[in-house]
């Protein structure tokens, strides 16, 4: 088991390396150099040259890449081009916890809603309930996130006044857990919608598979109540493969955060990214892209490890 985990972690290293190369290459494709926008036309040519020289923009691409990589490994992502003097790492540190919180709560919501729906769907296979759940979960896939978000703000926040319209907490009020949760619910729900459908479908089929197994049939034959069978035996075994889904959901969670964070004024890395992209703040864009991809790699790693721990059938 330990060797498997160690091997799995070692496998992630070349992956991360590739990710940095792709991110860096993408920024190199951008036309012009980063100074084109940050500088006023009135700045003197020699100052611009001095700036480029000082920031190593005139160096060989490989030299630039390895310097960037080396600094990054030490936690130094350089400085924002727009927010002069502010290290990118500082911006990341300020934003990352918000995004992680949002994603965490969002996945909890997705699981709490989807798994029961999937189980119900599976146990009542081909019934009206099953079809309705399938249909609703497809609706979730097919509706654009921003549309759901704006509708919810218009209706539940502005019209009914149930939820705040955005932000992480009420301005100027002391910290309170309820306040934070109150602000979290809408954005977390909207972020969850995109994945709830897939998750429901997945838990349905996973449950179906389990229900077909011999031991469930045996349990039923032995006179266990249907519910007991499903929840004690079926669910436990059915849930194990769902762990891996967590890893697969991560990219769409992080990607979805761009839209959700913009709509709900949620100061996470998605918002940092979109601001950076619009202002061509290359160090920020690269840092967020690398961090996001790293999160996905780590997520998948955790899912694999958890899977290995929970599934007794797998031997190493």
């Amino acid at each position, binding site marked *: 088991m330990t060797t498997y985990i160690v091997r799995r972690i070692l496998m992630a290293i070349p992956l991360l390396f590739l990710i940095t190369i792709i991110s860096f290459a993408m920024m190199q494709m951008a036309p012009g150099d980063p100074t084109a926008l940050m500088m006023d036309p009135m700045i003197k040519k020699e100052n611009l040259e001095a700036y480029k020289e000082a920031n190593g923009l005139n160096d060989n691409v490989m030299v630039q890449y390895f310097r960037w990589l080396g600094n990054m490994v030490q936690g130094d992502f350089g400085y924002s081009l727009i927010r*002069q003097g502010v290290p990118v790492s500082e911006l990341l540190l*300020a934003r990352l916890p918000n995004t992680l919180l949002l994603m965490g709560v969002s996945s909890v919501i997705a699981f709490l809603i989807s798994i029961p729906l999937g189980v119900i769907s599976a146990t009542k296979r081909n019934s009206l309930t099953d079809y309705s759940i399938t249909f609703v979960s497809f609706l979730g896939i097919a509706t654009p996130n921003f549309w759901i978000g704006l509708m919810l703000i218009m209706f539940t926040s502005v019209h009914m006044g149930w939820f705040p319209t955005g932000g992480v907490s009420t301005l100027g009020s002391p910290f309170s857990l309820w306040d934070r949760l109150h602000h979290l619910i809408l954005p977390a729900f909207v972020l969850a919608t995109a994945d709830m459908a897939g998750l429901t479908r997945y838990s349905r089929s996973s449950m179906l598979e389990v229900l077909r197994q011999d031991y469930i049939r045996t349990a039923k034959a032995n006179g266990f109540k249907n519910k007991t069978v499903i929840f004690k035996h079926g669910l436990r075994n059915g849930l194990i493969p769902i762990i891996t889904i967590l890893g697969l959901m991560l990219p769409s969670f992080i990607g979805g955060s761009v839209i959700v964070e913009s709509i709900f*004024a949620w100061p996470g890395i998605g918002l940092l990214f979109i*601001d950076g992209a619009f202002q061509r703040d290359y160090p920020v864009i690269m840092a967020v892209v690398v961090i996001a991809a790293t999160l996905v790699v780590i997520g998948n790693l955790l899912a694999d490890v958890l899977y290995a721990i929970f599934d007794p059938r797998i031997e190493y």
Partner: protein
Amino acid sequence: MFKNRFLLLIILALMLIVSACSDGEIKDSGKEKEKEGEDKPKVEEVEKSGGSLVLGTTAAPTLFNPLFSTDTSSSTIEGFIFGGLVTVDRDFNPEGDLAESWEFTEDGLKWTFYLRKGVKWHDGEDFTADDVVFTYGIPKDKAYVGPRGLPFENIKEVNKIDDYTVEMILSEPYAPFITITAQFEILPKHILGDVPIADLATHRFNTKEPIGTGPFKFKEWKDGEYIELVANEDYFKGKPKLDSIIYKIVPDENTLMAQLQVGDVSMTGISPQYVEMAKKLESEGTVALSTGASNSWEYIGYNLRNELFQDKLVRQALTHAIDKEAIVQAVLDGAGIVANGPGSPANWSFNPDMPKFEYDQDEAKKKLKEAGWEPGADGIMEKDGKKFEFVLKTTSANEIRMQIAEIVQQQLNEIGIKASIELLEWSAYVEQTGPPVWNFDAIVAGWSIGSDPDPTWFWHTSEIENGLNYGAYSNEKVDKLLSENTLISDLEERKRIIGEADAIVAEDQPSSFLYHPNGTLATAPNLKGPIFNASNTYYKIHEWYFE
């Protein structure tokens, strides 16, 4: 030739936001004075109410140092934290701020500022002439690489006469000196004096602990959320009635409107596409609106480097083909004034009698014919076998301009001119249309005038290579008038000269001037103080209060 391009980025930013800036009507300011009089006995009660002003914005600031920041959000906040020698009132008149008074010699070359005594920095140190000399020395320093060098270029000397008197010597008279250069906020020498000039741009002062003399003190910057400022009890014009200002960043404009509606934001500018909604909120008593002409104009700018647009007749014909009134009605719901030339009715220098080229398709066709353009077989105008086709560019960051582009495309199509639209994301748009690329045939854009109406940067030949004269317009007469305008300190005389230049520009139509938009400011109904004006939105903010 004196160059003053420091407004560039601010103006660029303003092009995006039809900002809350326009001339307060005289009637309004009168009313306000009355009110202030009435309120005096109630001062104590008002002070008790305190409260915090939540300003809603979609754009996050970058840093708080007037010599290094270039965006609107940052300069707004700098205005709260810092003070300059002078400021302007709601009608562009200079008014003493850190300088109690000032005088200048007849030749306009020597300016003496008498500073206010007893002013303290937020950290308790005294403000003196040393701070002024220090601040004005920064952009003159060789090591300075910030964006604000040019407004200081014609200052020859800055001398401390005594602790509260500063003298500045100019190399040539410059009319906007007092409304532009003297407005720059003063930085504390006792904190930044020892910092190498080259390191100032990235110093932690700018983002972590700015210290100023203004009505509000910096408290906290929650990245991506808000900037909190608290009242400076020792403010030299009196303790602010508001307890604090929260500059709240709401990246999505739809959400910003929702926040306004539920009262999470107590003041924000309203973009034209939301004006109707804001009016509805006003009728429900949710917000109070104040509106007025803003200090700007919107236009279709032609690139005169392109052969198509080099003939004045052609440009006039294009203007004849555009139904400006319909654009104002359809896109702005009527919240704008049709423009004939540059400038703005909100500004004192505006010339109301410029040549007009009204909507008239026949006239347009006639002028095109005169210029040698005839309809071809497919209905598109042709001259010497060349078709009248061009690309109209604008930015997807501005919904209004996107709509204008679509309308103009159709209207030009009706007289046989084929425009295709290309939308660019904001950064790309700036890159492509500005110097030294000028990669456009025509653009939908807008200019906003600063606190001084000098039109030099829009039309002077010397501004083609590096400045805001993107369309490469050049007219000797205009050049002469514009060079003259900044040398004259007499307002009436200067107004006449600017007016004359603007009229020639309007005749030449280097761009089809479309309209002067109205600006709209929405506030919480119980917030007293803010009045929409083109000059200084946050005028006397220390006297604002919640009822």
